[in-house]
C-alpha cells in the first residue's frame, strides 16, 4: 500500500508518498507560500531534488499540483492515482475527543472543527487539506493523526491548571501537549531498541518548537507544552512557561492587547528575544561560541 501523508500548516504543506511494503519514501515535497503568487514546490523524488514555481491559491490547488506531478510523464512517481491506498493527515489539535488516530468521517471532521478554538491557526489548515483530498481523491480512505492524542493518557493532576475549574469545564482550558506523533514514535523506537516496553523515558524533541515528554510503559504521563505550543521550555522565539504576572505587567507598560502580547511571546521571545542575534538556533550558538 502507498500512503500519501499530508501536513498542512497555515500557508505551507508538507507531503510524502510512502510505500508501506518497502518502507520507502518515494516522494517528499514542501509547498511554500500557499495563497500567494510566489508559491513554490520543492520536492525530492528518488534522491533527485526539484523546485517548481507554481502559484497555488489554496490547498486544493497545491494538492492538485502535487498529484499531477506524481503521475506526470516527467517524474512517473506512480502510474496512476489509484495506487494511493490511503491519505494520512497530520492534525494539530484533537482536544479531548481524539485519544488515537481515526478514519476520517463527517463526524470526525465536525469534531476537528470543534477544536478550532484551541488551535485557530493550525486546525483550519488541516481541515482544508482534508476537504481538498475529499474532492481530488474521493474514493481514497483518509486517516487523521493528531499531535495531541498521545498525551491524552496524562493524568488530571498533571493536565489541570491551577485556575478556577470552570475554565476547564467551560472552555476546555487544560494542558494538551504537542509533538505527540514524534514522542510516540520515539517511545516505540526506544522500546524496539531496548527490546522491552516497561521503560521510563524522557524524550526531548528539540526543534524550532521544543517539548519534553515523560513516557512510562509507552504512555505519556507528562509533557512540557500545554494548552498551546507556547508553553514549557524556552524555544527559538517562544518563551515557554513564565511567571504569569509578567503578562499583565508588560501589557500595561506597553499598552498592548492580549493578541499582541500572545504574538510577542510566540514570535519575539525565547532565544531570539534574549539574544537579539537570530531566530535560528544555529546562529545564536555560533555567536555565543565566538564571543566566549
Amino acid at each position, binding site marked *: 500500500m502507498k500512503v500519501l501523508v499530508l501536513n498542512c500548516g497555515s500557508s505551507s504543506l508538507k507531503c510524502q508518498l510512502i510505500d508501506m511494503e518497502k518502507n520507502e519514501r518515494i516522494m517528499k515535497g514542501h509547498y511554500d507560500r500557499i495563497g500567494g503568487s510566489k508559491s513554490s514546490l520543492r520536492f525530492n523524488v528518488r534522491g533527485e531534488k526539484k523546485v517548481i514555481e507554481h502559484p497555488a491559491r489554496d490547498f486544493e490547488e497545491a494538492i492538485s499540483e502535487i498529484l499531477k506531478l506524481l503521475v506526470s510523464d516527467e517524474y512517473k512517481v506512480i502510474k496512476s492515482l489509484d495506487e494511493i491506498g490511503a491519505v494520512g493527515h497530520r492534525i494539530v489539535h484533537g482536544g479531548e475527543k481524539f485519544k488515537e488516530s481515526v478514519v476520517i468521517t463527517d463526524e470526525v471532521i465536525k469534531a476537528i472543527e470543534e477544536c478550532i478554538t484551541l488551535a485557530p491557526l493550525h486546525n483550519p489548515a488541516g481541515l482544508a487539506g482534508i476537504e481538498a483530498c475529499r474532492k481530488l481523491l474521493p474514493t481514497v480512505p483518509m486517516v487523521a493523526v493528531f499531535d495531541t492524542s498521545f498525551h491524552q493518557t496524562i493524568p*488530571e*493532576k*498533571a493536565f*489541570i*491548571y*491551577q*485556575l*478556577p*475549574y470552570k*475554565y476547564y469545564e467551560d*472552555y476546555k*482550558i487544560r*494542558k494538551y501537549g504537542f509533538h505527540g506523533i514524534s514522542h510516540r514514535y520515539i517511545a516505540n523506537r526506544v522500546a524496539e531498541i531496548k527490546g522491552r516496553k516497561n521503560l521510563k523515558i524522557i524524550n526531548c524533541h528539540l526543534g524550532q518548537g521544543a517539548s519534553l515528554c515523560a513516557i512510562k510503559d509507552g504512555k505519556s504521563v507528562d509533557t512540557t*507544552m*500545554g*494548552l*498551546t505550543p*507556547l*508553553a*514549557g521550555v*524556552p*524555544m527559538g522565539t*517562544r*518563551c*515557554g*512557561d*513564565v*511567571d*504569569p*504576572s*509578567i*503578562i*499583565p*505587567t*508588560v*501589557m*500595561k*507598560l506597553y499598552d498592548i492587547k*492580549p*493578541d499582541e*502580547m*500572545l504574538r*510577542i*511571546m510566540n514570535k*519575539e*521571545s*525565547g*532565544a531570539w*528575544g*534574549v*539574544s*537579539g542575534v537570530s531566530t535560528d538556533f544555529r546562529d545564536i550558538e555560533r555567536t555565543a561560541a565566538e564571543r566566549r
Partner: protein
Amino acid sequence: MKILVVNCGSSSLKYQLIDMENETLLAKGNFERIGEQEAFVTHKVNGEKYVIKTPVMNHEEALKIVLEQLVHKDYGVIKDLSEINAVGHRLVHGGEIFNESVVITEDVIKKYESCSSLAPLHNPATILGIRACQKEMPEVPMCGVFDTAFHQTMPKETYLYPIPYEYYEKYGIRKYGFHGTSHQFVSKRAAELTNKKDGDFKVVTCHLGQGASICAIKNGKSQDTSMGLSPLGGIAMVTRSGDLDPSVVTEIMEREKLTAKEVNSLLNKKSGLYGITGLDPDFREIEAASYKDDEPKAQVAIELFTKTIAQFIAKYAVSLKGLDTIVFTGGIGENQINIRKKICENLEWMGVKLDLEKNNVRSVETKISTENSKIEVFIIPTDEEMVIARDTKRLVEDNK
C-alpha cells in the same frame, strides 16, 4: 539591645519586640484593618492575649497605640520607649538596587520608592511603616531587610526571562524571588545541623505557606528560586496560580474580556488550589477534603501541589548539580505531616527516605529523614523576624 521589628501591609502592621541579649521575644502583635472603624490590635505578651479595638486612620496612629502597649502599666514589657535601640523593617522589593540589608536613610527610602513599580501594593505600605517610626521615634536608628535581597546572587541565565531583552533593560522585568529572609535563615540553620562536614553544601529550602516558594542554595547563596518578577510565580499556591503556559493568560483575557489588572487579580486571588477546588481558600481545609472520597477536585489539587513541589526540588538538584539537604518551613511546611510525606514519596527515586515516626511532628526543628537517606530532610521553623532583628543589630553596631 532591644529591637522592634515592623512588618507593614497596606492595612496591617505586624510587630515584635526582641531582646537581642538572649534573642528572646518580649512582645508581639498585629494591627489589622488600619484605616477602618473596626481597626484592632492583638497584642501578645507571655502567652497572654490583649485585643484592643480602636479606630486608627493610618499607620502612624496604629504605631502610637502599639508603642503604648509596649510600655503599658499592667502588661508593658519595657519601662520607657527609649529602651528600644533600633527598628528593623521588613521591606519587600529591593529590585536590583539592594542585595543586602541596609541602614535606612532618606537616600535609601528614595531608592526603595523607585522599586515600587515592581511591588505596587507592598512597597508603599512598608514606606508608611518607616514614616510612622520616623515620626514617633525620630532618634531611633532603622534598618531595612528585603525579601528580594538574598536572591540577588542568582546568575543571569536564571534571572532573565526568555522574553524581549528590552523589557529587562527598560523596566527591570526579571526574576527577583521572595521569602529571601526565610530561605536565608533556614538554609543557614540547616548548614549548622547537617552531618555534611566538608565541601560544598547544597540545600533546597521549601517555604510553604499561604504564599510558597522554593529556593536552591549553594554555600549560603541563592542560585535559583521559584517565585519570579512577583510572588505569583513558581508553584501553585492556595490562591495564586504559580507559573503557567502564558497562552492560558491571554486566552482567559480574550474569553472573559478581562483587563490586565483583572487577570492579575484573578491569578493572584482566585486561582491555585482554591481555584481548582472551589473550597475555602484555606490550605488545611483543602487538604482535609482531599482525604474524602467525594472530593475528587481536592485530591487533584493536593496531588498537583505536592508533585509540583517535588518537581521543583528535583529541578533545583539539577541547578545545584547535586543535593545534600531538603528543608521544610512555613505554615504548611512545618505543620502538615502528610504533605511532607507526599512530597518526599515523589523523591524516593533520588534517595530521599523519610522516617515516618520522626516526620510525625509539627513545627519542631527535627531531622525527619532516615539515617541511610542519601539526602537529609529537615523541618526548620522559620523566623523571619529574628533575621530582621539580627541584621538590624549588626548594622546598627557597625554604624556606631
